[in-house]
C-alpha cells in the first residue's frame, strides 16, 4: 500500500500536502481501492468554506457513495476540473493527478492532529 511520506493523512483516508498556507487534498490508495472504480466526484465550488470534519463532497463508485471529510478547516481556492471528465484518475493516480481540492488553511494548529504515513498505515491495519 503506497503511502508517500511527503504528506499527512486523516483517519478518514484523505491526504494533505501543505505548501505555505495552502493545503491540497485527495484520497488515499486504501480509499480508492476500497471504493472500486470511481465513476463520479461531487466537489464544492471555489469560495466555499468548511470546518474540519465537514463533508465537502462525495465520491461515487458504481454501487456505493462515500462522503469526503475536510481534514482541516479552510476556504476552497481551487478544484480539480479534470475529474469531471475523467473520474478514473482517482483510481489511477490518487496522490498526483487525482488531487481533489486546494484550500487556504484557516487554522495551522489543526495540522498537528493529522497523521504521519506510519501512523495512518497503523490505523488501517487495525
Amino acid at each position, binding site marked *: 500500500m503506497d503511502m508517500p511520506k511527503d504528506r499527512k493523512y486523516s483517519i478518514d483516508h484523505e491526504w494533505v500536502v501543505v505548501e505555505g498556507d495552502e493545503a491540497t487534498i485527495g484520497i488515499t490508495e486504501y480509499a480508492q481501492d476500497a471504493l*472500486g*472504480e*470511481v*465513476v*463520479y466526484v461531487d466537489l464544492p465550488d471555489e469560495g466555499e468554506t468548511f470546518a474540519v470534519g465537514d463533508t465537502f463532497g462525495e465520491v*461515487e*463508485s*458504481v*454501487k456505493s457513495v462515500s462522503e469526503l471529510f475536510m481534514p482541516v478547516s479552510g476556504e476552497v481556492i481551487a478544484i480539480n476540473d479534470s475529474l469531471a471528465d475523467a*473520474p*478514473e484518475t482517482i483510481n489511477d493516480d490518487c496522490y498526483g493527478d487525482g488531487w481533489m481540492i486546494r484550500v487556504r488553511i484557516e487554522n495551522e494548529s489543526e495540522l498537528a492532529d493529522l497523521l504521519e504515513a506510519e501512523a495512518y498505515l497503523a490505523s488501517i491495519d487495525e
Partner: protein
Amino acid sequence: MDNLTETGVYRGPKETIYEASSKGLTCVLPPVLDVPAIDVADTFGSIARASAPILPEVTEVQIMRHYSHLASMNFGVDSGMYPLGSCTMKYNPRINEDMARLGGFAGLHPYQPERSVQGALQLMYELQNDLGTIAGFPAVTLQPAAGAHGEYTALSVFRAAHTAKGNPRKKVIIPDTAHGTNPASVAMCGYDVVSIQSTESGMVDLEKLKAALDEDTAAFMLTNPNTVGMFDSQILEITQAVHAVGAYAYCDGANLNAILGITRPGDVGFDALHINTHKTFSTPHGGGGPGAGPVCVSAELSSFLPGPVVEKEGESYRLVTPEHSLGRVRSFMGNFGVLVRAYTYIKALGAQGIRDVGEQAVLSANYLRVELADVFDIAYDRTCMHEFVISGSRQGHDYGVHTLDMAKRLLDYGFHPPTIYFPLLVDEAMMIEPTETESKESLDSFIEAMRAIADEAKSNPELVKGSPYFTPIRRLDEAGAARRPNVAWTGTID
C-alpha cells in the same frame, strides 16, 4: 471465451431500431382524413414543430424481427427459475393476462359514469375485501402503483392521523436490515430516519427498539418475515412497545408470500401494511413494472386513506373519498389492469390455495437450505420462512471467488441468480427464494448447479470469476456506463 466463437452465432445486442431504419419506411398508416385538415403553421404559429423528431422509420416485419431478437436475449420466469430473495418470482398465470385484456376492462375511461363501470368497481371492491381478509385489516386502498409508493402512502396516513391528534411527530424507526425504499420513503414523508441495530441473529433488538421509542416517534417500519428470511417471534412484544408510545407499526409486506393463510400482519398488531401484487399475487414483473402496491390499514386509520376507495351500497358500487382523506397519491384510481390480474389469481386460489402457497413456499425454501448447508455458509442455519440467506464468504476467503462471480456463473447453468449483496447485514450475501411454483425437479437442478459452482470455485476459480460465458452478452462495463452516460441514441436516419 467469446460467445461468438463458442456458439458460432453472435446472440447479443445488434443495432437499435433507429439504426435499422430507412427514410420513408412506415408501419402504421394513419386513417384517411375525413374532415378538412388544419393548417399547422396558421393554427400553431410559433409553437408549430420546426423540425421533426427523429423516430424509427421501419415496417412491421422489421419491428417484429427486431423485438423478437430482443426477446431472445431476455430471461423470464417462463425461461427458468428465478430464486430472487424478497422478489417472489412466482409463475404468472396466462389467464390473468386474458382477463386484463378484456374489452370490458381495458376499454374503460376512468371518468366514464359510475353506472357504466359497475363490473370494474365490483372487482375492485371484492379485491379490497380479499386483500383485507388475507392481511387481517378492515380497510384497503388500491391506489398506490408500487410497493415503495405504498410505503409512502402508509407513512402519509400515519402523518395525517398524528396531525389530526395535534402532533405529526418527528421520526420513524427502522431496523438496519430494512430495504432501501423504507428510509427513502420516510425521508420523502418529511420524517427523520432512526436506524436501530438488529441482533446477531437478524431479529429486532427489542431493548434497542424500546430505548429508541419515544413520544417523537411516528412509526416503526418492519418487514416480517424479515429481510433475512425469518419470522420475528417477538412480533407481539414489538407492536405492543410501539403502541405504548402512541406510535404506529408498519409492516412492509414484501415477504407476505411466506405467511399467506398462516398468519396475518393485522392480527399481530400492525396498523398498516403494503402489498406487492407483483410479488405475492402473481402479477408479472414486466421487466421492471408495472406492479401495484395496495395498502391495508386498521379501522382507526381508514378515514385517512387516499381516495377514492370503492364502497358498496345495496347492490351497487360507488367511488367514495374517505372523510379525512390525506388526498391523492397519483392520478386516477390505481393500476387497474394490474389489479385485474391479482383479482383473477386470488379467485383461482381460493382459501385452500392461499394457504397452500404459504406452506409450499416455506417448505421449498427450507428444502433448498438443508440441501446446500454443507457447501455454503448459511447465514442463519435454522428454520427459515420462504427465503434464506447464504454467505459467499467461505468461497471468497478460501478461493477468492465472490458472490458476484458465483451469481454470474449461475447464468451459464440456466438460472437467474438469487438476490446478491442484500441484506447488508450478511457479508457476501446471496438471498434465495424459490417460491411455491418451482417443481421438485427444478429445485433439484438448482441444488446441483449451486453445488457444481461451489466445486468450480475450488477447482477452477478463474472460470467462475470470468463468467458468464453462454449468455447473449458477458460482463458489462458498468463503471464506463456511469462515467459517460449514454442514455439515448443520437444520429440521423437516411
